């Protein structure tokens, strides 16, 4: 397999890129490598952030130089045998399918609202990346039958707990923020709480199922 590419993200972070685009296999690799680097507990490493096809290691250059870090990262070559090591965490999120856009979404997809709900709840999604706002998880892949482009005009305020979808992804808005996805339901699950030991409920690589409540 091709070796991952290491590039600088300034003087206090490096990005390791494993491939391009959005794929479950690539994301599995990113999540496994991020876990490996985190558990190595290299002195000077502050945080490891996984994304779709890359991960970034944030570090303190006064404790660990660029060259030292890259040398250590290169020594940790990806190992496909390790990929399946840890079983991913699974979550079930109860949803009231009462979203403002549910009927419009159903109409545009030539489906009944109950079909949309049935399809949305029928599969297990994976968390590709957490970001954009605290605790926001990009979940996918969404069933092809539910794919729609983002809303033309984003809302200035999406209620906290809104369950939404756009393009090939679905997710839950953890807090009230602007948003351009289609709102199909609501959950009372607190996706993000800064006071918790683990503030974000979800992590990259986790599996999520929605159930109608």
């Amino acid at each position, binding site marked *: 397999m091709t070796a991952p590419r290491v*590039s*600088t*993200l*300034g*003087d*206090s*972070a490096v*990005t390791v*890129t494993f491939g*391009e*685009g*959005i794929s479950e296999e690539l994301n599995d690799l990113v999540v496994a490598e*991020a876990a490996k680097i985190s558990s190595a507990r290299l002195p000077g490493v502050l*945080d*490891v*952030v*996984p*994304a*779709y*096809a*890359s*991960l*970034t290691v*944030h570090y303190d*250059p*006064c404790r660990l*130089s*660029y*060259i030292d870090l890259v040398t250590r990262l290169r020594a940790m070559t990806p190992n496909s045998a390790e990929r399946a090591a840890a079983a991913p965490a699974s979550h079930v999120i109860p949803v009231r399918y009462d979203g403002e856009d549910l009927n419009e979404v159903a109409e545009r997809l030539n489906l009944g609202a109950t079909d949309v709900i049935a399809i949305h709840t029928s599969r297990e999604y994976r968390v590709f*990346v*957490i*970001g*954009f*706002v*605290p*605790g*926001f998880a990009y979940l996918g892949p969404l069933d092809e039958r539910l794919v729609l482009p983002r809303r033309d005009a984003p809302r200035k305020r999406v209620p906290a707990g809104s369950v939404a979808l756009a393009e090939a992804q679905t997710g839950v808005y953890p*807090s009230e*923020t602007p948003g351009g996805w289609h709102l199909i339901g609501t959950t009372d699950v607190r996706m*993000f709480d*800064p*006071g918790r030991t*683990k*503030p*974000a409920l979800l*992590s*990259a690589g986790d599996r999520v199922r929605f159930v109608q409540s």
Partner: protein
Amino acid sequence: MSSGVPRAGAMDLATLDTLNALLGNSANSAAIECALTGGEIEITERVTFAIAGARCSAKLNDMEIDCFRAYTAKAGGVLTIDAISSGRFVYVAFAGGIDVPVVMGSRSTYVPGGFGGVDGRRLRNGDVVKVATSPRVRHHVADPLPTALHPKRSSGPIRFISRGAADELTLSDWKLSSSSDRTGYRLAGQAVIGGASITSEPVCPGVIQLPPGGEPIILMSDAPTVGGYRILGTVISADLGRLAQFSPGDPVSFEIMSVEAAQRELVADNERIDQIRAWTLG
């Protein structure tokens, strides 16, 4: 950052670090960041403080006060910071640090998320802010901090570590756009070709993005942790505080620096902070 929480914190961290060292505070002690406008702080209990950052006129009661100098104010005193004339942020730090709860390991306010600091929001008229008691009684050096120990602020180009396509930045004339805030600073100038959306990657303050529109954005303290635009490079950490103090309309130019040289700047700045702590004990 893996839970989607940005770094937040002081926009001009080098200035805040200097004040904390001057006052004998631990490195992660909280202070007040005043943006663009001044204000009035009424002292209700004897406290030692220092200010620094953007150029402004500041008074303790009727006495003009200097930047980077510890003063002790008695109960009933009034600290006034008049309009900021050059720069954007003035820091008011107190011996002991501001006493707000530690959230996710930090006392910073993250306003877009509504948590941290005082109720996750900007301070308002009438707010009462507590200062933690200094762990030990210190005799604070009342002399002004020697200029050699101030944050190094050149007036040259902003240095950045390139991701390979540096010409777009280094060969153009830029001005800081008025659409600049704690989330990001936008550059106004000739729109650059080559902007693109990418599969999102983790980002951090200092990252310079080129969106399809063609006007670069430099991510700052409150920027989201993941970004979907092409990355041109990242401003060196040692220059982020200087950049943060630019005002809309200011010309901005860029120069490439190697990561090794950028890290040497950071190490040197750390040594400066150590020297300040030694100076306060002398």
